[in-house]
């Protein structure tokens, strides 16, 4: 939502220099050390980060760990409450809810990650160009971004998903478009403060082209805000994906997604069976919580000045 920080200050140029790491230490050990210090400084984020990793692993290995085929219906076991055979119960045409929840993580995470990467990256390059060149291009871009932000994200995503027709790629594009303004605004603000610094001036006086200055000198400084944006928006993207599925404009059935499963539960009868409602929702909540807290931790680590702000 729009309550994310609008300006994320760039790191000091020195903070990103890899030269500070003493030579001779292997990469895995350095990574491990970094992770350990992250765990010490933000234990809560580290804990939820582990859960996020577990969910990722679950998504990748879904076919191996799911007890049944998520699309296979067993007509002898329709709408059965949780028991030893179907741990999470089964739906109205006898598909195993646990398997569907596990497979749902795949769709959910694929869509959310692809959408956030696509949207934030597009937004970042746009913000980079508009902040760097300024002038008329900047004014027009700013207005356009304002127009995009005049829609609540869910409504914009619904309209785009409906106009393009249902499908995985459509949903990714729809969610990605709602993420563009955030990347655009944040990176533009960063670039505005960077382009007056002396290293940019030095590059220019050496005769570097605009493209070279933007890509070689300014872009690397945008990595930290980019990472912060990408991780903090994952949770929102997962919720939008679930809402689209719930409203019937997401990824079309029979693909199991958490939103589709909740919509199916509502359509199952006048009183939806509780196990069909409970488990997909718990999956959404835990996933979003894990990625939000991990994102908060990464933000605090990369940019301590933002600690505690919204």
């Amino acid at each position: 939502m729009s309550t994310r920080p609008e300006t994320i200050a760039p790191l000091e140029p020195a903070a990103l220099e890899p030269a500070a790491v003493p030579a001779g230490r292997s990469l895995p050990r350095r990574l491990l050390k970094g992770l350990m210090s992250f765990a010490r400084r933000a234990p809560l984020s580290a804990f939820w980060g582990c859960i996020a990793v577990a969910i990722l692993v679950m998504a990748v290995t879904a076919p191996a760990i799911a007890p049944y085929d998520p699309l296979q219906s067993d007509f002898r076991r329709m709408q059965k409450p949780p028991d030893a055979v179907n741990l999470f119960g089964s739906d109205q045409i006898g598909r195993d809810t646990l398997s569907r929840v596990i497979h749902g993580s795949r769709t959910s995470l694929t869509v959310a990650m692809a959408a956030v990467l696509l949207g934030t990256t597009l937004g970042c390059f746009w913000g980079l160009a508009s902040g760097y060149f300024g002038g008329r291009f900047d004014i027009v871009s700013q207005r356009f971004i304002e127009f995009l932000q005049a829609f609540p994200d869910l409504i914009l995503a619904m309209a785009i998903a409906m106009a393009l027709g249902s499908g995985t790629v459509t949903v990714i594009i729809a969610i990605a478009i709602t993420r563009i303004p955030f990347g655009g605004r944040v990176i533009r603000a960063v670039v505005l403060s960077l382009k007056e610094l002396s290293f940019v001036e030095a590059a220019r006086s050496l005769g570097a082209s605009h493209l070279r200055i933007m890509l070689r000198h300014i872009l690397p400084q945008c990595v930290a805000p980019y990472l912060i944006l990408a991780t903090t928006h994952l949770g929102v993207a997962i919720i939008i994906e679930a809402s689209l599925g719930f409203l019937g404009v997401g990824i079309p059935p029979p693909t199991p997604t958490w939103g589709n499963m909740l919509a199916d539960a509502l359509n199952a009868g006048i009183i939806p069976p509780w196990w069909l409602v409970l488990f997909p929702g718990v999956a959404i909540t835990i996933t979003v919580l894990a990625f939000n807290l991990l994102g908060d931790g990464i933000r605090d680590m990369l940019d301590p000045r933002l600690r505690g702000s919204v």
Partner: protein
Amino acid sequence: MYSYIVRRFAFGALTVFGVSVIVFLIMRVMPGDPLTAIFGPEGMTKLTEEQRLSYMRELGLADPLIVQYVSWLGDIARGDLGRSFFRAESVGDMVMRRGPLTAQIGILSVILSWILGIPVAIVSALRPNTIADNTARFISITCLAVPGFWLGMLIVLGLLFGFGYRAPLTATGASVFEEPWTTFQMVIGPAVVLALGQAAYIARMARSSLLEVIREDYVRTARAKGLNGRLVVSLHALPNALLPVITLSGILLGFVLAGSIPVERAFGTPGLGYAMFTAVNERDIFVMQNLVFLYAVVFVMLNIMVDIIIAWLDPRIRYQ
């Protein structure tokens, strides 16, 4: 002050124009063909070429895009929001009938979110980094992670199994003035669900804003002259700390109107959000086009209103 209001409205008008272009582009120009949206990809193959053309002409889709756009703007300017393919009721009538319910959900949820969020923020800000503060922050983070529509489904199920209660649902929607109790029962569920998410944002924002204000000189002065701690907070710190919260609350109200779509679906509340759900499922593009535009205009208007309220409360802003 007046020049500020005029300027703000001029920008608002520009935004509404931009919004209308974007809505039109999404609905008419994007690769999806409106007729495919209406008939579905299979129905489309059954249409003959003549049928397709005659439908296009009938719906005004055969004209050049710019003509379509101008005639749409003309319709809107005349207050004609078009009608659905599938229903007799015009979109304008539907908005008048269903809109009030959604508006009540929105307003009630804002009120509830302040009642829930502000006290939590005060406790958190006065004792930062204590157990109470950390608990409050974790609860608010959890509230942000729970999808409202799922919580709604759980509440409906819980009330049904626990108490055998189901909120009254009338297809027509009830008027607050004629049947206040029925309306309240229909509205309170969605409002509570939507309030939780907002309350979390409000508590976070109010906490950080209070923490900043408490360090200001005038708060120290108030303390130094011997004013009791509760009065310092309620008279000096809180009113100033609430300014950014008002802005946030206005923006959130816009998001709540959008969030209300799946939540109304979960509760089965016959508000505007449910109409939006129906329209999107029936691929009713003209209804969608007008409703999306309406939601965006309401969103822009809310932002203008909030800006004006803030400028009225805080002279520093209007002289910028």
